[in-house]
């Protein structure tokens, strides 16, 4: 009895360590910008709005986590968000289906995109990032066709998910579902098993391909939710072409790397949520500093590079391509 309590204590400390680390990041990133520009940054109200803004990417990132843990990648995240948002908007607006049309339309589109990504990846046996690069071209084009080349605007009566408490409710539901899938279903166990060693997992009777496709579908559905939040927050969506949707890939991907890094503390999902929050604090910090928008891209690119560098550990002699 005493022993069990001891291990419980030990486990708590691993998790607590993770939380403390994240809290430290929040405080440090807040502190730095608060010192540089104390007037227009970092009040409690500011922080709440940064957190609201970070929910968008956090929802996408917890879904994308399933794909990343298995060691695969997805270049079509941005195109998926764009396409799902436009389909959701068209359902809600043009077809007059209201909120159900928006939410269901976007999530189903996202899941279908995931299904297509996963199926082609598994069937064609091509590296996932290459398949999704090709597919991103196609999704962008399809989104453009559906939008008819014009900006899709969500009517003001349908923007409840763009502000408190709508956005928070939707995000919390999404986080809860991800948490449940990861910790309380076979899917979660098998996701980690495949990510750890595909051959052993296969020998254990896990149908690896099925779960890989499933991971893409889950990821796609969460990106669909992110699409709902994105278009509600920004009120409209333009269907860009020429791989310009790639710029939407970065922020969810960054959060995912936080999740991967904190996996060992047994708390990937909270890490993703707080990680995205930290990223947003830094972004808004730079905005408060008056950095031009173009420079924000520089920061985004650099930030991802640094996050990946700090969070990935490569064994000596391992081959990285």
């Amino acid at each position, binding site marked *: 009895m005493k*022993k069990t309590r001891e*291990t419980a204590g030990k*486990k708590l400390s691993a998790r607590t360590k993770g939380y403390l680390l994240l809290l430290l990041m929040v405080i440090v990133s807040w502190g730095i910008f608060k010192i540089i520009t104390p007037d227009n940054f970092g009040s409690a109200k500011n922080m709440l709005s940064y957190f609201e803004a970070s929910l968008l990417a956090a929802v996408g990132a917890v879904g994308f986590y399933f794909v990343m*843990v298995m060691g695969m990648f997805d270049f079509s995240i941005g195109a998926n968000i764009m396409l799902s948002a436009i389909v959701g908007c068209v359902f809600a607006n043009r077809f007059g289906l209201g909120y159900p049309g928006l939410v269901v339309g976007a999530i189903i589109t996202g899941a279908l995109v995931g299904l297509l990504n996963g199926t082609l990846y598994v069937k064609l046996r091509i590296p996932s990032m290459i398949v999704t690069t090709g597919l991103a071209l196609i999704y962008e084009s399809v989104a453009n066709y559906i939008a008819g080349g014009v900006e899709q605007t969500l009517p003001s009566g349908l923007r409840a998910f763009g502000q408190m408490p709508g956005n928070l409710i939707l995000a919390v539901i999404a986080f809860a579902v991800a948490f*449940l899938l990861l*910790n*309380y*279903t*076979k899917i*979660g*166990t098998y996701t*980690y*098993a495949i*990510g*750890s*060693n595909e051959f*052993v*997992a*296969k*020998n*254990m*009777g*896990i149908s690896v391909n099925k779960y890989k496709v499933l991971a893409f579908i889950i990821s796609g559905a969460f990106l669909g939710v992110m699409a709902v939040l994105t278009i509600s927050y920004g009120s409209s969506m333009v269907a860009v072409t020429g791989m310009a949707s790639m710029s939407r890939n970065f922020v969810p991907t960054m959060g995912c790397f936080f999740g991967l890094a904190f*996996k*060992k503390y*047994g708390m990937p999902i909270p890490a993703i949520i707080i990680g995205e929050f930290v990223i947003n604090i830094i972004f808004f910090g730079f905005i408060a500093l008056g950095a031009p928008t173009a420079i924000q891209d520089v920061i985004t690119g650099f930030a991802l590079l640094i996050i990946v560098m700090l969070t990935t550990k490569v064994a*000596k*002699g391992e081959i990285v391509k």
Partner: protein
Amino acid sequence: MSEIRLQVKNVSKSFGITKALQDVSFDIAKGEIHALIGENGSGKSTLTNSLTGIYQKDSGQFILDGVEVNPRNQVEANNEGISIIVQELGTLDGLTVAENIFLGHENKFVKCGIKNTGAMNRKATELLKEYGFERIKASDMIEHYNFEDRKLVEIVKATYFNPKIVVIDETTTALSGEGREELYKQMKRIREAGNTVIFISHDLPEVLRLSDTITVLRDGVYIDTVKSSDVDEDGLKKLMVGREVSGEYYRADYGERVSDEVVMRVKNVTVPGLISNVSFDLHRGEILGFGGLSESGMHEIGKACFGASFDREGTVELQDGTQINDIPTAIAHSIAYTSKDRDNESLVMNQSIRDNICLPSLKTLANKLHLLRDGKLKKFAQQFAATMSTKMESVDQFASNLSGGNKQKVVLARWIGKDSDILLLDSPTRGIDVKVKQDIYQLMDKMRKEGKSIVMISEELMELIGMCDRIIIMKDGEINGEIMRDKDMDENTLIAKMV
């Protein structure tokens, strides 16, 4: 005679052009520990992997208690009552101990799609307690435990459901004394329950001590099944190798004096976690053997001398004072290395034989303008592939299409082409059939006579005894003894220093 549990009937399995198993048939009885022995590459693991669904056999049958079984993966095998503890790690990172134990069998704990983690952990804790492994906690992540404890978890995973057959594939070599005793205890428990253990081991005394029956395989072919009480070690060895161990197979000379000239001086070499404070001299024309258990660190010796180890401390110095700290320097100073992991570290698999042989010699093959001609490369490759009598269609063929023995010949051809003077051979005959082995032994003998020096690292004690002027035994990353070439040396002398 006890009842038959498993009939192996005409089982065959090929990997590409390598015939790993050819028409193997024999019976295994209920309530016995049945050992499966043979040299490396004889097909033991292929047979058990086919039985447990890790590989799919090409033809033949496995008949368990009168019913044919044909599992496609380990979980299906488990459902038939067959389980396996594999040689390497069989547990998965990122999962808890409990999740690992029940991987593939979660359905017992799933209700309406929701997994009852609590119930799973309780059941796992119960099992661990039953086995006496209380210090392992069911809800902990598996990566918090070391190799040995993870093996214990595998023992639980493979035996908790009382399977009819448990395969234990060379697990003992990786375990220390305590873990080994635990495994022996479990094996005996399984036998007492009337079930069967198929036990694969290289350690012949261990095999004789533990098993009731022994089946010998050689080059994928069934040789014989004998009662443990009817044979001794020499008898088993004869069955395994297939001839009297003498004559032309290994080198025949004894008592030849090795030159005093030191060609390579290794001083206080340490590679964190693998070897510590290793020092030795390699003489001209000497074959220096390294033996030990596979985890003893001996395989790192070759890499360390080749400049391929990470974070190596200490020095490797050649006769002319050159320090070897990286691979290109090593090769430039006539050092060659063949890895135990031939397919990843020695050969560029999806590359032509030509390029594989020419790779380290490109500098000398180029003309004054640093240009290479295809014809010249081809001729060079053909010449040395022929020296090694490599069986192939042409040098343009990919290395991946060759059998294990011919792959090794390509690797050796590369270094003969480079005319290396110091050869670091790690497990040079691993997974290679007897005929090619003999070719390699003869080549080594010839090189020795030409004044080249060889470091031979091997898990096969017989070939160390047969080939080496001197054998250094490694234990736990350190040198644990040195034995000179002697006609009367036997394996027990070496084993005593190994464990």
